[in-house]
């Protein structure tokens, strides 16, 4: 059982404060959704927790199993079990998915330990089968010329292979049509387990019909203003963000 604890986190970009005191705890096996309008700091939260160099954490802490990760480099955080599914995944021309993942898996091995290539491919193919991904997919360069749906599937495949303790999923539904959304959601659902905690960031309720969360948090202006169970998402959908603005945000 692992725990990701975000404590009174304040994040800024340059001089501008974006996240203004946010606290949240995710445990293994739980799926949390953070909902909120654009520009409220959801993506900033995810990237800051992952260690993106453009964001400065001005106060607060992020603890993984009781240990602060803020002193760790992004790659150390990743190897400690943190995975960020990007809203806009980068293209890496010339680097195939298979080779990239292989390097990522190798990076998790100890000094002098060599990756067993046969076992690696076996595992890769079984994950691809599970996610219904064509074998040819992994010989393509990462995200290079991918459609929106392919990019998100590529993220899910990486998540499946790297088996993180916690996954931060940043607007995984953005740019997907309904078929692609269903495929991606099926993938995430297949990965749900007692070993994985998920923090899903989304603007729309529709993703939550496919990936049903245990907890829903509404974010506004850098803070969580209301938390509840999955019914909160439906309420938010029905009443709209004006409801949040007018009734939930303290004046």
């Amino acid at each position, binding site marked *: 059982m692992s725990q990701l604890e975000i404590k009174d986190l304040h994040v800024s970009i340059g001089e501008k404060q974006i996240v203004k005191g946010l606290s949240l705890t995710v445990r293994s096996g739980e799926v949390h959704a953070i909902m909120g309008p654009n520009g409220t700091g959801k993506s900033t939260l995810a990237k800051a927790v992952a260690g993106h160099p453009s964001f400065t954490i001005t106060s607060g802490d992020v603890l993984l199993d009781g240990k602060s990760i803020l002193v760790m480099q992004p*790659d150390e955080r990743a190897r400690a079990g943190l995975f960020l599914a990007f809203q806009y995944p980068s293209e890496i021309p010339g680097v195939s998915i298979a080779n990239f993942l292989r390097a990522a898996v190798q990076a998790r091995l100890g000094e002098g330990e060599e990756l067993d290539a046969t076992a690696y491919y076996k595992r890769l193919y079984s994950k691809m089968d599970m996610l219904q991904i064509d074998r040819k997919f992994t010989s393509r360069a990462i995200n290079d010329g991918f459609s929106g749906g392919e990019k998100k599937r590529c993220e899910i495949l990486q998540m499946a292979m790297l088996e993180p303790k916690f996954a931060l999923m940043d607007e995984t539904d953005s740019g997907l049509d309904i078929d692609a959304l269903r495929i991606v959601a099926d993938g995430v659902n297949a990965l749900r387990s007692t070993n994985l905690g998920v923090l899903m960031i989304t603007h729309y309720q529709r993703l939550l019909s496919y990936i049903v969360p245990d907890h829903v948090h509404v974010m506004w202006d850098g803070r969580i203003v209301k938390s509840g169970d999955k019914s909160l998402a439906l309420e938010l959908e029905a009443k709209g963000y004006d409801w949040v603005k007018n009734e939930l945000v303290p004046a």
Partner: protein
Amino acid sequence: MSDVTETESLEPPIADTADNPVSGIDQTAGNFSYKMDYEFDAGTGLSEKTVRYISSVKKEAPWILEFRLNALKQFLAKPMPTHWATKDLENINFDKIRYYLSSGQKPKRTWDEVPDDIKKTFERLGIPEHERKFLAGVEAQFDSEAAYSNIKDIVSKQGVIFVNSTEGLREHPELFRKFFGKVIPTGDNKFSALNSAVFSGGSFIYVPKGVKVAQPLQAYFRINAENFGQFERTLIIADEGAEVVYMEGCTAPKFSTSTLHSAVVELVALKGAKIQYITVQNWANNVFNLVTKRGVAHEEAEIKWIDCNIGSRLTMKYPGVVLKGRKARGEVISIALANDGQHQDTGAKMIHAADETTSNIVAKSISVGQGRSTYRGVVHIPKHLKGCKNNTECDALLISPNSRTDTYPAITVRGDRNSVQHEASVSKVSEEQIFYMQQRGLTEGQAMSLSVNGFINDLARQFPMEYSVELKRLIDLEMEGSVG
């Protein structure tokens, strides 16, 4: 005959070199030298006396001495090409260079006969294993002369000649003289003139009509002595319908003073012949590497240069093909990596001189830190020709904000019956890309080297397996060291 000394104590244990699949390109494995007592030493500085000394030590025919002396005159008369090239050339002190060093032995045909110190050098760099594994022949040059030379029986029985240039001149003078200095005339440039005056070593290869050499021939060039200038001269002739792949690797230990490497390589592909020439250079970062490489492709012949430049202080090299016969093809695939304090000034030349000739240039450069890469290309298609095609792509990757790249393409295509295509791009490894890869668990250095390897991936795939593996390893080493 000598003491073994390490120039630095950083070299990896011997066991490491056993994994090194190809010799000559791993600088960490190459950073050691031995104290030698050279039997023949032309001293420092360059004069007519130096040239006469070299020629007499080599017991050359009078015409070669004449050739050398004429070249020396041309070298002295020519100005440094700093009106277009970097002023760093002025830092070469020709008076401090040693132009000829040799222990005086003839090249040995078996490993057992090679003197121990020299043998150790090449064994550390992995030569004998490679020879057994995948080479048809090896020529290993230590300073000025070949120390070891071997060609597999099956290949020599086909009539293939693979010797060093000294031996080539002595034993195959008619063949040698017919082509020698014809592709690259002495006065082509200041450094071809210098090479022509003091050349020693290099390979001479002749592949008879219709013979296709199944495995590559490899030459290995090793600079061992400080202040030394290596001036090898290579001539490869593929007779009608013949095919050969030649690979060369080069290293030198890190000395405190600069070293000069100035080779001339001439290729002749007669009708329907194919020559592929692969270079992976990893010079120490104080080597001036000024090399002239050119081939002539006759009717339906094909010449392909694959050129990887890593290391050196300054490299200036523009492999070229003169497309002399109808339907001849020329190709240059070039990869250059310029790290801090290095300038890779590389490119290609395609001179179309017959109808329906085609040429292809793909050049990729990577600049890291303060590294600087320059692409210079010449494509020339005169008006009277028809059906000629050229494709040029040059892509630059900048790793750091202060890395630098310049492109100077000179494309002269006249007439309306020829076609030419030119594409150039400059890209950067972005912070977002690095973060993305780091988020998957790769260190910053690993992320950089993965993006660099991705950038050259389509070219590296054209290399023989052993070389592409080694190239990747080498890039990893360069990139690991470049992240502060």
